């Protein structure tokens, strides 16, 4: 990788200050996406701002009808959190399925959300659960936050600090992993909660995470796997590569939606 300046601020304000002053600075939390990109020299940041020294950005708590997850909370912590398991078991199970053990030991929810990799797991959960992303300066609904492949509503230098997730009545997740990379090649998160019935899809779309309106309508009318079984997803919006055509991914979205509904119970 190319060399860079390393900063380890101890407050959000200090981190934001460094990031705001330098458009080529990159924030790092777990580094599970950034570091592989840097190693392949796909990225040439002038400085890397390590957020791990900032207190109070880590941990899960229940606040009324919501879970509040600190941005630096690691996937392993989400997967094993008694609070998450009690409130949104599908979210804990999803966290336990992200990457491998070593990714889960380092990777953070805030990092995953801010990066919005199209095959990342969390964005689909947050979209389906109607979560709100809190940053150093504002709150943004998941619907507004995720704006296509690797694109978010974050302004330059804006940091995710926490994620607020309404506790749903029921939720489920299923995904087909890419056989080689093991990232999601079609993952569907379904939820029935305060924001209604929502279905979000990762991995498959050609412009990142998206909501599947036809499935939401069908499940609103009849919460069952059969309700989505007949829904054909349009392949024109799907990604195609050596691991599967757009038609295959479109088909997988339906299959995973059925399984997610079964998972939700």
């Amino acid at each position, binding site marked *: 990788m190319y060399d*860079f300046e390393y900063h380890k601020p101890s407050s959000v304000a200090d981190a934001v200050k460094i990031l705001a002053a330098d458009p080529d600075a990159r924030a790092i939390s777990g*580094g599970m996406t950034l570091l*592989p990109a840097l190693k392949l020299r796909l990225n040439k940041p002038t400085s*890397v701002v*390590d957020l*791990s020294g900032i207190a109070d950005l880590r941990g899960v708590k229940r606040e009324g009808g919501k879970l509040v997850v600190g941005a630096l909370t690691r996937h392993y912590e989400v997967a094993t959190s008694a609070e998450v398991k009690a409130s949104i078991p599908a979210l804990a199970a999803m966290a336990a399925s992200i990457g491998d053990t*070593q990714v889960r030991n*380092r990777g953070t929810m805030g990092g995953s959300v801010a990066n919005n990799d199209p095959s990342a797991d969390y964005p689909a959960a947050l979209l389906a659960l109607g979560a709100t992303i809190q940053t150093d300066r504002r709150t943004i609904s998941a619907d507004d936050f995720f704006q296509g492949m690797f694109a978010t509503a974050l302004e330059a230098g804006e940091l995710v600090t926490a994620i607020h997730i309404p506790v749903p009545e029921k939720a489920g997740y299923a995904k087909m992993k890419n056989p080689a990379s093991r990232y999601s090649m079609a993952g569907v998160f379904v939820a029935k909660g305060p924001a209604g019935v929502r279905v979000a899809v990762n991995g498959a779309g050609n412009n990142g995470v998206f909501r599947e309106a036809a499935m939401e309508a069908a499940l609103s009318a009849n919460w069952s796997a059969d309700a989505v079984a007949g829904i054909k997803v349009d392949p024109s919006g799907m990604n195609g590569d050596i691991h599967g055509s757009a038609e295959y991914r479109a088909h997988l979205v339906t299959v995973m939606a059925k399984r997610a509904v079964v998972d939700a119970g």
Partner: protein
Amino acid sequence: MPQVSLTVNGTKHTVEVEARTLLVELLREKLRLTGTHVGCDTSQCGACVVHMGGDSIKSCTILAVQCEGADVTTIEGLAAADGTLHPMQEAFREYHALQCGFCTPGMVMSAIDLVNKHPDGMSEKEIREGLEGNLCRCTGYHNIVKAIAAASDVMQGRTAELTPAAAE
């Protein structure tokens, strides 16, 4: 040049590194702890797995400067001072869970974390899934899975001694 202080296998080191230096480069090149290997450049293979604060991590996917103040254990730090192997090392030998030995350090370090995170033991399926982050090209994993199951029984007190591999 940035400086990093960390504890590796119980010994404290302070080392000057470029900011871009990875932990695995610090271990292999600065501390000459060459038991931790590099088998890929996409964070897939797991040959570089070490423990930091008790958790398994890929030392190729963390900057050395991110390890300030960290407590790192590598494969060289597993056996007791008198040479007694860790139960996981002993099980790998007993069950022939290594051939070329290159993936072995990372595999052993991952396996120990896996066992530690499953205090009630694991099914064969859980062990296989738990090894998602480690590639082995030699063994077909068959004996690795058996070794981890046997070691977990010792580490968690279900058996007093390592169950010998079946005599052939």
